[in-house]
């Protein structure tokens, strides 16, 4: 079976080479047949890679330990369902996962591009095949998951036990997919540049579409990662500014800036150069993310897929960045803005400020992440830069972003008069002052929390104000309130979908603020039968039981918990010890309500029956997890295409005659 996969890998490598060369040739010679050939060549890669993947998974399921990667990442004791997790839990396998996922997504993208952007698509295809070619080359020549051992082993080493969690079925796939999918808008942008059509804004719709897809994947990956850390890593937190977390955050920041500023180009034909720069930076950061995750120079808890290959990625990142910038400079003259700025106070300038802030946060994050390497190289000073630094520096900047998120959308395009600013921002600002005072009266004394709540309420009120204003004007034209509301959202989906996303960001901001300033943590030593109190929670340690599994021993504590006088049942936090790895993993038990989480996690079970538990009350954490679905919903609304009748109604006389010459005969 594995040999079949090997052949499929080699064939896909050849096809990727072919479609790279022929794709660029088709673009340069303007040959339709060449482009079509390259396209079909590219389509063939995905099934081939799926075959290779299937052969690897088959090796996992059949315990074929003669395959090196299988022996390193699984053992007989591993539940077979985890074959899927084991597939991408190591370096070589995760590369194959990235390749197969990317070939599928890029195939879909190219299919759509071909009809929408006939001139750009051969070049974009070339760039995408080149990205894929790189991954396939690395797989084939440096880290092939299908290689066999010289000798067959009895049993494998097994998978890192921290990865045995159902969150692992979704978090890493989304995260890797998110990172690699940044290549899609990047290829479209570079394709448009190469075709000399970067200034025509025709790539903007597709660039935005795939930019948002990638943004959605990245966001989902980050949120799932935070959720995984919160439920399994057992320290009661969800984000630690660890190098790998940072490296996933940086491309997210750049992509967030991109999906916003691309709207300015769509609407006003401005920021043409800026968008190119942004997407180039975002792709470089995504590569950086894959580099740090793959055993880069910075020590991290998350480097599961460790190898020395990070440096290959770094080199390729540098080359990509260099070539992209060269292309950018050569096509510089095609990227003049259609118009300038009418007023300093306008939505355009709010977008610009927002973009700068996002990039600034990304830069500071990068700075903090790599500074220990720099200081060691320059001065031989080793140091650690962790959570306290990032919270202090990035926290205020992020609050500023939430503020801009509030006022930006209500500033009109082109020019904002003081009258309209007054009309739109009066209510939000008054309400935010009220919120500030109210919080102060009710006893909040942390000034960052006061500021954060006030800022969040500005953003919240502007969103609702916009929704009500729009519904009202539809209502006054005879639609019922409910109908007015939904048709309002349907009429301008990018805008109102965006508002829904903004709502979810407010939920996140509130949750993060409350849980980072007002969490309560206590370590308690207990014997079975003891009761302790934390806040309104009373918890009684009943007993500990031991359960043996083939790969681990679990010590499960049983608690009875009361909230006030109400019994909320039993909670079972446990500690699992994996003798083969000498690793202990703790699993907290969480009682989650809309207001706060009560979180119990064992730290240590001592010989004499004593046990140490960590108990936390984390306010408003569930708001963060609830923000996830809201965010996805909002993004999907913003992404959903207009329906046909609307498209027809909104159609303008087509000025750009050459936009789609291949369709002209229809």
């Amino acid at each position: 079976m594995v040999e079949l996969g090997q052949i499929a890998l080699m064939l896909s490598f050849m096809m990727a080479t072919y479609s790279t060369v022929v794709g660029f040739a088709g673009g340069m010679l303007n040959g339709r047949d060449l482009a079509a050939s390259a396209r079909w060549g590219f389509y063939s890669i995905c099934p081939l890679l799926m075959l290779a993947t299937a052969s690897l998974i088959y090796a996992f399921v059949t315990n074929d330990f003669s395959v090196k990667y299988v022996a390193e990442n699984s053992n007989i004791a591993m539940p077979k369902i985890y074959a899927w997790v084991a597939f991408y839990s190591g370096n070589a396998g995760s590369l194959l996962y990235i390749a197969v996922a990317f070939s599928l997504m890029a195939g879909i993208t190219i299919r759509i591009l071909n009809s929408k952007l006939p001139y750009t698509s051969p070049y974009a295809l070339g760039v995408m095949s080149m990205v894929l070619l790189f991954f396939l080359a690395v797989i084939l020549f440096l880290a092939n998951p299908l290689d066999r051992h010289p000798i067959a082993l009895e049993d494998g080493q097994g998978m890192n036990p921290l990865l045995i969690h159902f969150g692992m079925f979704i978090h890493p796939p989304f995260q890797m997919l998110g990172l690699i999918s940044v290549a899609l808008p990047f290829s479209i942008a570079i394709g448009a540049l190469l075709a000399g059509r970067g200034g025509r804004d025709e790539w903007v719709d597709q660039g935005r579409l795939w930019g948002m897809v990638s943004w959605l994947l990245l966001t989902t990956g980050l949120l799932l990662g935070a959720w995984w850390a919160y439920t399994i890593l057992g320290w009661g937190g969800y984000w630690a500014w660890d190098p790998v977390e940072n490296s996933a955050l940086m491309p997210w920041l750049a992509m967030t800036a991109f999906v916003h500023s691309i709207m300015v180009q769509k609407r006003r034909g401005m920021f043409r150069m800026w968008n190119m720069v942004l997407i180039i930076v975002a792709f470089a950061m995504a590569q950086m993310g894959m580099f740090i995750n793959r055993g880069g120079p910075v020590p991290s808890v998350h480097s599961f897929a460790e190898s020395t290959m990070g440096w290959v990625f770094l080199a390729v990142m540098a080359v990509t960045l260099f070539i992209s910038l060269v292309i950018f400079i050569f096509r510089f003259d095609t990227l003049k803005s259609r118009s300038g700025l009418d007023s300093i106070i306008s939505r355009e300038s709010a977008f610009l400020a927002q973009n700068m802030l996002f990039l600034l946060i990304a830069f500071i994050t990068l700075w903090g992440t790599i500074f220990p390497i720099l200081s060691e190289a320059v001065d031989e000073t080793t140091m650690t830069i962790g959570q306290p630094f990032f919270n202090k520096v990035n926290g205020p900047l992020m609050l500023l972003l939430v503020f801009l998120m509030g006022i930006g959308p209500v500033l009109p395009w082109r020019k904002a008069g003081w009258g309209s600013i007054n009309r739109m921002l009066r209510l939000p600002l008054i309400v935010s002052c009220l919120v500030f005072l109210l919080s102060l009266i009710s006893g909040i004394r942390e000034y960052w929390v006061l500021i954060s709540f006030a800022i969040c309420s500005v953003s919240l009120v502007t969103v609702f104000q916009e929704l009500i204003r729009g519904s009202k004007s539809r209502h006054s034209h005879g639609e019922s309130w409910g109908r007015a509301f939904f048709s309002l959202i349907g009429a301008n989906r990018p805008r109102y979908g965006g508002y829904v996303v903004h709502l979810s960001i407010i939920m996140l901001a509130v949750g993060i603020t409350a849980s980072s300033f007002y969490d309560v943590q206590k370590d308690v030593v207990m014997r079975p039968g003891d009761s302790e109190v934390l806040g309104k929670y009373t918890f009684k340690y009943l007993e500990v039981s031991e359960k043996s599994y083939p790969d681990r021993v679990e010590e499960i504590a049983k608690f009875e918990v009361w909230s006030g006088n109400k019994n909320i049942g039993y909670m079972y936090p446990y500690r699992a010890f994996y003798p083969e790895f000498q690793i202990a993993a703790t699993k907290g038990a969480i009682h989650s309500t809309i207001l706060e989480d009560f979180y119990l996690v064992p730290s240590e079970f001592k010989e004499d029956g004593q046990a140490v538990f960590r108990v936390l009350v984390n306010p408003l954490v569930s708001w963060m997890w609830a923000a996830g679905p809201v965010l996805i919903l909002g993004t999907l609304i913003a992404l959903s295409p207009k329906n046909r009748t609307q498209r027809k109604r909104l159609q303008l006389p087509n000025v750009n005659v050459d936009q789609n010459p291949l369709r002209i005969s229809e």
Partner: protein
Amino acid sequence: MGLCLNIYPFGLLPFRILGDNGYWISNSGMKNSPYQNIRLSLINSLLMLVLFLNTSCIAANSDFVSQEEDRINQMNRVIMCPVCPGESIDQSQNEIASNMRAIVKDLVRQGKTEDEIKDYFIGKYGPVILLEPSTEGISLYVWVVPPIALSFAMIVVALAVARMRKRQKNSSLNMNHDLADEVISDEEKEKYFAVINRISNE
């Protein structure tokens, strides 16, 4: 609306003022419209929500954890676990981390200050043990660069805005200027007609 206002103890005062003269929060000519009521009740519910959130924060934060314990937790979060890079001893499940937590506890109980405890661990493991870089020597750059970057970013935005403003002023003198950008080049015309010819020949 009245009901909303009255069950709301804290916001009462500002609301009476706001709601009754209708000036602050309604557009002129829209007094007492259903729109205004919706807005008011939304503001009410928002403020109630805020109150609700506040109480949860406060509830979590009242004094069931002694100040001493609070200090211990604070210290644990800034000290790194030496064998699990990137994790604080607060986070780490490792045995060394739990021993170090015990040491922190002891030191705090002995009445040592934050700096003394930090110095104790620096003495044992070197400055790498702190998660927050110091403000001396080369580490100073970590702290200095972000504000410099911020001012740099602000200057760049200001310059970009000024340039775009200037361009707009120039181009508004010549209104047709915008269209000139859109006209297709000769080279592209050729491409385009080539395609048309090919299609019409087929």
